[in-house]
């Protein structure tokens, strides 16, 4: 009996050693690639994290398939990029040929060698990187090398209830952030509480997600440009946080605002603007489409977010194409990325959308592509809608698009974000003061960064 047990265990031990050999990263695999715009391509390209859903995607996908040629089979693995899914593939040496990831993730993938630098790809396929928005390119550039081809841009604009503003004797200038004292005053005027319950949210500063925006508006960055030093305890950041939290405190605390905000019919006809329960807030530009769809008559007013000098400002995020290390068809992957993001593909896709919108009588609000040339051409396709509100929204969107900033790629990606978001949450939950919370966050974030940067040498 004991002998048998021992036999079993030794089998297990041997098996472990064997299989531990399998548990390699793709570090030992070489990615030999010849990138050339004129080569004929073949083989398989599996695309992880992208689904060909709307016309913007479908049209460009068709273009990409055409450019790659009939010998290439494209297999989409639909659904947002799931890190467990991706890592399982990488660990077993079975990575997809190309991944579609959030730009904010590229830094940590790049620093670990999960995705390869695209210098050769860009040269060989002649990708014009100057066509991409600098903030978009910054987010995917790590240690001087580009690791992702940017796609799409998401920016914020101030979306306000014009009726409520008017009734309180306020203008957009009072809520666009150009003067924080004005916003605080406007917040007090717009907020309405009845019987201890919040009835109208004056201004929603959208913490914790929008801390980078407010910090930048105050002239501070959360992280240094080289991605090595956290700057969370910068007095200007603390100032921004204190002000933004103050907005909530003036309304009875974050808990109340959050609870009220969550009970709103966000995507429906009873949304916060249509029901007159929100004064103003910064919000991503795609929400304009939703509002136009479900509550076209809502009394809206739009402007870009402004910094303390009154200049438009927006935090840009979006996606990017990257080639995993161990990709078995990097040549095709590169061409795929090029065609998906080139101006002509975007324009064709936008034209299709215009056609569809004309058919169903909807509003075409443009597409923020992350590609400057494409953006200009598509903006020219936009016709005045006849409704001043939505035109104002589109104008604000495109203005914001020209004044974006983003966070530089850094190897501690998620850990850094968790550190400052946790700090903000502690303040929102009343557990710490802004100064203490950011001091703690600074410690945690800097440690994460230091550890991550130290790893890179090894």
């Amino acid at each position, binding site marked *: *009996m*004991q002998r048998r*047990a021992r036999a079993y265990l030794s089998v297990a031990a041997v098996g472990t050693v064997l*299989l531990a050999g*399998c*548990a390699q990263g793709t570090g030992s695999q070489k990615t030999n690639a010849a990138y050339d715009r004129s080569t004929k391509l073949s083989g398989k390209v*599996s695309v992880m994290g992208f*689904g060909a*859903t*709307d016309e913007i995607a479908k049209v460009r996908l068709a273009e990409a398939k055409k450019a790659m040629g009939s010998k290439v089979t494209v*297999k*989409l*693995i*639909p*659904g*947002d990029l*799931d890190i*467990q*899914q991706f*890592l*399982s593939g990488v*660990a*077993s040496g*079975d990575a*997809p040929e190309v991944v579609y990831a959030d730009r904010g993730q590229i830094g940590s993938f790049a620093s670990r060698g999960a995705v390869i630098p695209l210098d050769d790809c860009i040269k060989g396929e002649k990708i014009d990187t100057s066509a991409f928005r600098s903030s978009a390119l910054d987010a995917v550039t790590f240690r001087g090398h580009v690791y992702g081809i940017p796609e799409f841009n*998401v920016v914020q604009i101030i979306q306000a209830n014009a009726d409520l503003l008017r009734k309180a004797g306020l203008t957009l200038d009072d809520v666009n952030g150009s003067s924080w004292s004005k916003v605080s005053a406007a917040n007090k005027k717009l907020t309405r509480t009845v019987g201890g319950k919040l009835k109208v949210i004056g201004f929603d500063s959208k913490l914790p997600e929008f801390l980078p925006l407010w910090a930048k508006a105050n002239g501070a960055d959360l992280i240094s440009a080289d991605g090595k030093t956290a700057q969370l305890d910068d007095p200007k950041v603390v100032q921004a946080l204190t002000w933004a939290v103050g907005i909530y405190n003036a309304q009875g605390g974050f808990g109340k605002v959050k609870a009220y905000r969550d009970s709103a*019919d*966000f*995507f*429906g*006809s*009873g949304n916060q603007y249509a029901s007159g329960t929100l004064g103003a807030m910064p919000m*991503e530009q*795609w929400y304009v*489409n*939703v509002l136009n769809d*479900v509550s076209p008559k809502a009394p809206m007013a739009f402007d870009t977010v402004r910094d303390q000098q009154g200049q438009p400002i927006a935090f840009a995020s979006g996606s990017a194409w990257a080639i995993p290390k161990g990709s078995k068809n990097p040549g095709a992957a590169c061409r795929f990325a090029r065609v998906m993001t080139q101006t002509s593909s975007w324009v064709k896709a936008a034209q299709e959308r215009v056609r569809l919108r004309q058919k169903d009588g909807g509003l075409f609000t443009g597409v923020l592509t992350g590609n400057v040339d494409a953006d200009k051409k598509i903006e020219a396709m936009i016709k005045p809608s006849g409704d001043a509100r939505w035109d104002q929204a589109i104008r604000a969107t495109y203005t914001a698009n020209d004044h974006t900033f983003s966070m530089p790629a850094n190897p501690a990606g998620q850990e850094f974000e968790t550190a400052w978001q946790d700090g903000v949450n502690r303040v929102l939950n009343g557990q710490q003061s802004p100064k203490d919370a950011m001091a703690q966050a600074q410690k945690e974030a800097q440690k994460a960064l230091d550890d991550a940067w130290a790893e890179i040498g090894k």
Partner: protein
Amino acid sequence: MTATDTPAPRIAESAPLAVGAGRSGGGRPVGNPVGKIALAVTMSVLTLAFVYPFVWLVSASFKPRGEVFDNRLIPRTFTLHNYVAVWHDAPMALWLVNTVYVTVLATVTVTISSALVAWGFAYFRFRGRDLLFGLVLASMMIPGAVTMIPTYLIWHAAGFTGTLVPLWAQNLFGSAFYIFLLRQFFLGLPRDLFEAARLDGANNWQMFRLIALPLTRPALVVVGLFEFQAAWTDLMRPLIYLRDSDTFTVPRGLKSMVDQFGFGGEFHWELIVTASVITTLPMIVVFFLGQRHFMEGIATTGTRG
């Protein structure tokens, strides 16, 4: 199991206590009308609490996007559009077939294998039994997140990634939870039954198949239903093992559809709730049909001897 069997000694101890407690007014069986009504009311309230969220889901699935969260039980605008849209452009039929295939295999294999192993641990005495059973328990104590990668590597080494095999094949070896559960039920069977059978010449296999299994039918049905629910709704395994959308199971397919509409956060909640309802309905049907066997299982236990 009759009253004269092994339970008797323990109950005899407590019977005097029971007599002593008889002073408390003698328990009237719940045959009286007040008791019955009280029971009915309690059950209804509890049922409402448990059922309400699902009713909300069903109601929401018939609403257009703008009304999903308006908290009305009866939709203001009743629409079947979601049920059409959710199947549109998606190989739903294929996904259903895959899901049924995986679920049936997973359920059948785990029930049989867990019963075998549980019986081994319950009936027999052998050296190292308790230690081994401790290991069974121990296997439940490891967080899934870390065993995910090694398990994936094993399946990859065996060449089965990308197929449906990893979704059910582990069940061939039993599952600690069900082994533990079934062992408890097997331990509850009186040994005299088996002694008697052995005297009649029955071997181990016959005792297992002809006595132990039938007597624990309710528990086996429970195992089957639980595993059905787990296999049907599993998302994690299809997510990491399946690449080709033709091989997806329903939960995996629905996730990809939901993510589709998620760009920029434009979640189409009305499709998410509809997908949730569609995923749940078959299970409700199976469960409702399956748990009749609870009742039948009961009927046989009282007439042994």
